[in-house]
């Protein structure tokens, strides 16, 4: 049976999928009748039917454990299963967030040390682990920017500058924080256009948010100059740390002139993501912002760990202490690799991306032909000239059992294909991807129809995303 059914459709009255255990608590009266539902239409299926249903669904899943997943800017690296074991240790998984500090010293020690590691890795002064997603970390960083300027009595700084290759969350976070947006252009080499920055950077600008490496997968060699200019004019420099995987152990954001950086533990520090969470987006700050960090931080005093609130804290940005399970996995990752291992991560991530860049360059247009960092951005413009679009290439990759790269982003590259292989892929896997991309490039010339009608081998064929967006119908229509 295909997956095209839901449990109520195979439900039959009287089928039972479980047997209830013997009652081990005293029987009690039911609540008053008017509070009880008369009917509760739970599907009635047998255990084996239930198992087949969920197994069928699980087979439709595609993840890093299934195959290559070069989704640019998302760092879909392999997540070692050992981390899951660590996060599931009873001392971490079975504690309650309101337990007294004395009774959860191990968990607090892990948080304290993780704060220290992230501070060290980013070359900053202090770290808050509280934000529960990447964009939440960005948002928190901007709240710190706001608090910093207000504390200095500078109320004119209402604007956040972004580059034209920014992640979509960058402007969204700034607007959510009540800022206006200013956009700085990229120059012909994909770096920040210094003239544009020079004219945009005035006394209304609170901060420049600059992803490093940029979303074009390029390291901007003028970063020190950029930081200097922003600081001279009274602004702050903030990083969207989505691309930390390229810099891990090589260079520190603090040394590049950044005042704060938001991290994605679920990307760089290898915890599962892509299904909507849970994430973790710590914010690491220099001394000038440390007093404003959200509450709580973990400190160590006379051998005891405890929660504290910084003196001018912006307060709480999430309930309890953040996504602790993700912190456990990131901690396990850092400890198992060590400083040398983390360095190798970025070396191999950058090497793999450059390998793909060189191998695919003869077949796909490279908008910025220079050494890239952890990801490489191609343009599908050569194929577009033949009537085949990037979306067709992406759909065709599904037929090879590969997850497509990020497409149509960054917006500054026409028909963009943004490929991030990550360090965990072997040369064999990369070569298989290159072969698939070469065959696709050949099909563009010889057999474009196979691209226009792709995918051919997936459970559903090409979806009509235009109709879905114009007339969304989110209801399952039950077979009666």
């Amino acid at each position, binding site marked *: 049976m295909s997956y095209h059914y839901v449990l109520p459709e195979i439900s039959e009255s009287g089928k039972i999928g479980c047997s209830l255990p013997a009652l081990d608590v005293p029987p009690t009266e039911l609540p008053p009748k008017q509070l009880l539902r008369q009917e509760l239409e739970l599907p009635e299926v047998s255990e084996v039917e239930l198992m087949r249903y969920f197994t069928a669904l699980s087979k439709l899943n595609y993840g890093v454990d299934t195959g290559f997943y070069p989704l640019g800017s998302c760092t879909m690296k392999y997540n070692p299963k050992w981390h899951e074991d660590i996060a599931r240790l009873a001392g971490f998984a079975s504690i309650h967030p309101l337990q007294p500090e004395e009774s959860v010293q191990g968990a607090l020690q892990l948080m304290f040390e993780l704060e220290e590691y992230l501070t060290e890795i980013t070359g900053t002064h202090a770290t808050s682990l509280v934000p529960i997603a990447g964009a939440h970390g960005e948002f928190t960083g901007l709240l710190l920017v706001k608090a910093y300027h207000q504390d200095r009595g500078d109320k004119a700084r209402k604007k956040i500058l972004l580059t034209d290759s920014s992640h979509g969350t960058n402007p969204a976070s700034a607007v959510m924080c009540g800022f206006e947006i200013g956009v700085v252009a990229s120059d012909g080499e994909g770096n920040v256009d210094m003239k544009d920055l020079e004219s945009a950077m005035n006394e209304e600008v609170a901060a420049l948010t600059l992803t490093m490496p940029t979303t074009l997968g390029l390291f901007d060699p003028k970063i020190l100059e950029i930081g200097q200019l922003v600081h001279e004019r009274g602004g702050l420099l903030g990083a969207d740390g989505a691309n930390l995987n390229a810099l891990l152990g090589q260079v520190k954001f603090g040394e590049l002139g950044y005042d704060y950086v938001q991290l994605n533990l679920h990307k760089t520090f290898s915890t599962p993501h892509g299904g909507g969470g849970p994430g973790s987006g710590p914010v690491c700050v220099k001394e000038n912002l440390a007093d404003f960090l959200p509450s709580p931080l973990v400190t160590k005093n006379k051998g005891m760990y405890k929660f504290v609130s910084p003196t001018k804290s912006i307060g709480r940005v999430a309930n309890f202490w953040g996504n602790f399970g993700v912190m456990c996995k990131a901690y396990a990752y850092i400890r198992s690799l060590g400083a040398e291992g983390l360095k190798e991560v970025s070396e191999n991530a950058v090497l793999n991306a450059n390998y793909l860049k060189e191998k695919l360059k003869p077949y796909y247009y490279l908008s910025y032909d220079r050494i890239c960092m952890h990801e490489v951005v191609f343009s599908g*413009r050569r194929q577009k*000239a033949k009537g085949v679009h990037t979306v067709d290439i992406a759909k065709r990759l599904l037929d090879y059992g590969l997850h497509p790269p990020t497409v*149509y982003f960054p*917006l500054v590259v*026409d028909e963009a294909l943004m490929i991030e292989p990550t360090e965990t892929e072997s040369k064999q896997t990369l070569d298989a991807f290159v072969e698939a991309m070469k065959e696709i490039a050949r099909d563009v010339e010889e057999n474009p129809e196979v691209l226009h009608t792709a995918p051919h081998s997936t459970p559903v064929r090409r979806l009509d*995303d*235009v109709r879905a*967006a*114009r007339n969304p119908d989110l209801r399952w229509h039950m077979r009666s």
Partner: protein
Amino acid sequence: MNRKEYKYTVEHEWICPESGNKGKVGLADYAQSQLGDIVFLDLPAPGTQVKQGKKMGEVESVKAVSDIFAPASGQVVEINQTVIDEPGLVNKDPYGAGWLVRLELSKPSELDALMDSDEYDKFVAALSEKESE
């Protein structure tokens, strides 16, 4: 009215001057072709004051969300309800049935700063050339 008589912005909006200092506004063909299939439009309500060059709405395609900028200052007097219900009209007929709003212009002389259709066509040709370099 012929699109030759429209005026154009660098952001690819057009405005068609009408009698009584009014003007009909829409997106140029180049804008719709770059955006791809348009799925949603967020237009300013009638009565809204808009300012030349400032954001007055949003257009969402399957690829991206973009701002719509007012080609001239004034007050929104009418919006095209048909295009809200059927955003694909912007793709099908950007200069006709796909119009977006009608403005009452507060400074009609602002239109002089916009491109006429010949200038605009040259502007788009230069962009397309750059794209296929």
